[in-house]
C-alpha cells in the first residue's frame, strides 16, 4: 500500500512536469502576443515593451519556465505599482491579462467546477446505472430498446444543444425553474442545488448512456457467472440475484470509468459551464487560451492533471474496497 502510494506520487509529479513542459512548448507556437493583448489595442511599441518586461516575457522560454517552477516551490514577488505582493508557494504565477494570482483564481473557481462535476456524477450514476439495471432486467424487451434509444439520444446530442433545449423547456416554456445562475454552496446550499439542477442534468444525461450500457453489460455478464447459478439453485429470487449479487459485478467498471471521467471533468466541462454561466475552470481555461494567458492555461492544465491522477488513485482505492481480491502494489 505504501509502495503503491509512493509510486503514484512519483507518477503524479512526472505527469505534472510533463504537462507543464508540454503546455509551455505548445504556447511557444500559439499565435498572439500576450504583451500586446495585455497592453491594449492602441498601445505604442514603447508601452508594449514595458508590459513585456513587466510580464517577464523578454526572457527566453526556458528561463521563464524556470521562474515558473521556482514560483511553484518557493513563491514569487510581484509589483502592483504601489507595492509588492507576495505570491505564496505553490505560486502558479500571475495572469498576463488580469493580473490575478493564478493559484487564487483557480481556488476561486474550483468549487464551481467541483459542484458541477460531482453533481453530474450523481446524475449519471442514478440515471445511467438505473437505466442500465432496468434494461438488464428487461433485456430483449421493448423497455430496454426504448431506454437504449433515449440514453443514446442524450449522448448523440452535443451538450450545447441538449442544455439549451433543457433551458428552453424547463425555464422558458414551462417555467418550472428560474434560469440558473451559480450560487456558491457556502452561500446558500438550497439555492446552490436548485441552480445546479439543470447543468447537472444536461451533463449527467450526456454521460449517462455510457454508464447505462456499461452497467447493463456488466450485470448481464455477472448474471452469467457460476455463483449466480449457485444462488439460483438455492431458491434466491431473480430480482435479488440482480440487486444483491449481479450489481456488484457492475460496480468496479462503473467506479473506474466514473473516476476517470470525473478527473477529466476537473479541467472543466467547457460547454456546460458556458451555457449555464458557471464560473468554473473550463471557461477559465478557454478564456486563457483565447487570451494567450499562459499562466492561467498552465495552472488549469496542472489542476486537471492533478485530478486525473487523483481520480486514478481514487478509482484504485475504491476498486480495492469494492473487490477485496484486488491488492494494490
Amino acid at each position: 500500500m505504501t509502495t503503491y502510494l509512493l509510486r503514484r506520487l512519483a507518477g503524479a509529479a512526472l505527469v505534472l512536469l510533463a504537462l507543464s513542459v508540454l503546455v509551455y512548448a505548445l504556447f511557444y507556437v500559439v499565435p498572439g502576443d500576450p504583451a500586446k493583448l495585455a497592453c491594449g489595442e492602441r498601445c505604442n511599441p514603447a508601452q508594449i515593451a514595458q508590459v513585456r518586461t513587466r510580464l517577464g516575457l523578454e526572457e527566453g522560454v526556458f528561463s521563464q519556465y524556470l521562474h515558473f517552477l521556482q514560483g511553484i516551490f518557493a513563491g514569487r514577488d510581484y509589483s502592483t505599482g504601489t507595492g509588492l505582493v507576495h505570491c505564496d508557494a505553490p505560486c502558479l504565477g500571475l495572469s498576463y491579462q488580469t493580473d490575478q494570482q493564478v493559484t487564487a483564481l483557480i481556488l476561486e473557481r474550483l468549487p464551481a467546477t467541483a459542484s458541477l462535476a460531482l453533481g453530474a456524477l450523481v446524475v449519471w450514476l442514478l440515471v445511467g446505472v438505473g437505466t442500465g439495471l432496468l434494461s438488464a432486467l428487461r433485456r430483449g424487451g421493448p423497455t430496454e430498446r426504448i431506454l437504449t434509444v433515449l440514453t443514446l439520444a442524450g449522448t448523440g446530442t452535443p451538450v450545447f444543444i441538449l442544455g439549451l433545449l433543457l433551458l428552453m423547456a424547463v425555464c422558458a416554456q414551462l417555467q418550472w425553474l428560474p434560469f440558473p445562475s451559480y450560487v456558491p454552496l457556502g452561500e446558500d446550499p438550497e439555492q446552490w442545488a436548485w441552480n445546479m439542477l439543470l447543468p447537472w442534468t444536461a451533463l449527467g444525461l450526456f454521460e449517462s448512456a455510457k454508464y447505462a450500457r456499461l452497467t447493463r453489460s456488466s450485470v448481464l455478464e455477472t448474471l452469467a457467472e457460476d455463483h449466480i447459478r449457485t444462488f439460483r439453485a438455492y431458491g434466491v429470487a431473480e430480482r435479488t440475484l440482480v440487486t444483491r449479487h449481479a450489481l456488484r459485478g457492475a460496480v468496479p467498471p462503473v467506479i473506474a470509468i466514473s473516476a476517470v471521467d470525473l478527473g477529466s471533468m476537473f479541467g472543466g466541462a467547457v460547454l456546460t459551464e458556458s451555457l449555464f454561466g458557471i464560473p468554473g475552470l473550463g471557461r477559465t481555461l478557454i478564456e486563457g487560451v483565447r487570451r494567450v494567458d499562459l499562466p492561467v492555461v498552465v495552472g488549469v492544465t496542472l489542476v486537471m492533471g492533478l485530478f486525473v491522477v487523483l481520480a486514478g488513485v481514487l478509482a484504485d482505492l475504491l476498486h480495492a474496497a469494492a473487490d477485496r481480491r484486488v491488492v494494490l502494489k
Partner: protein
Amino acid sequence: MTLVTDAPVPVADLPATGTARQVWRRLRTRPAALASAAVLLLLVLLAAAAPLIAALTGQDPYAYHDDLVDSARGGVPYGPFGGASADHWLGVEPGTGRDLFTRLLYGARISLLVAVGATALQILIGLLVGLAAGLGSRWVDGLLGRATDVLVALPMLVLAIALTAVVPRGFPRPLLLVLVIGLLGWAGTSRIVRAQTLALKNLDFVAAARLAGHGRRRTARRELLPALAAPVLTYAAILVPANIVVEASLSFLGVGVTPPTPSWGQMLSTAQTWFRADPAYVLLPSGFLFVTVLASTVLGDAVRTALDPREASRLRVGTAKETGR
C-alpha cells in the same frame, strides 16, 4: 500500473471462434444489426455520392439564395419546414438560403471522414501504446500509463490552436481535426488493449509461440493482434459517433472545419439558437447525428456479440477525450 485501467475491461475470455463466415452468419440473424448496417452504408454512399446527387438535383451546397430568406426577420427561410420545397427538399439554411439537403450530404463527408480518420488514429496509437504497456516491463508500463494521464489532461483546444498555427496554410482542415482528435483521444483504446494484452500474454498459446523461437514482434502480430481485433473493433464503433460529437464541439469552439465547407458539427453549432425560429435547421443535423450514433452503436454491439459470443454483453466504454461537454 493503475488498476483502474484494468477494472473495466474483462479478462480476455477467449472467443470460441472468429472466422468471418461465422461472424456473418450470426449477424445475419439479427434484423437490428442488418438495418443498422444498411443505414450506415446508405449514409456512406450518400456522402460519397454527394457531388453526384448535388448535380442531379441541380443544387449547389455553396450557392446562396437570398430570395428564399426573410432578411428583415434575421434571415429565416420563407415558408414552413425551413423553406422546404420541390427544389430544396429539406429546406434552406437561414441567412444564406443554401440548400440544406446537399449541405447535409457534404457535411456527412467531412463528419464521417473526420470521425473515422480520428478513430483510426486513436486505434492505431492505442494499439501500439497498449501493446507496449502490456508486453513491456513494469517500468515501461508505468511510464506509458503516466503518458496516458498527460494526454487526458492536455486541453484539446490548446493543441488545436497550436497545430493550426504550425501547419502550413492550405493544410486540409479535416486532416488537422483528425490529428487533434486522434492524438489526444487514444487513452481509452490503449487501456483496453493493455488490459487485454496483460490477460492474453499469460495464455498458453502466447507462451507456446515463444517456444517456436519467434521474436516478440511476430508473436504480437500473429497471436495477439487477432485476439485484440474483437474488442478494438467494437470499441471503434463507440468511438466513431463520439468523435462526431467531438468534431461538433470543436466547431462550436471555433476550431472546426473552415467555411464554406459544411460539416454536421459546423451546422449544429450555427443552428444552436435557431430551434424555435427554424426547428428544421437544428433537427436535421441532430437527426443525422443521432441516426449515426444509434446505428453504429447497435451494429457495434451486434458485431461484438458475433465476434465474441461468450463475451456478448460486455461493453467497452470510452474514456476517450471528452470535449463534448
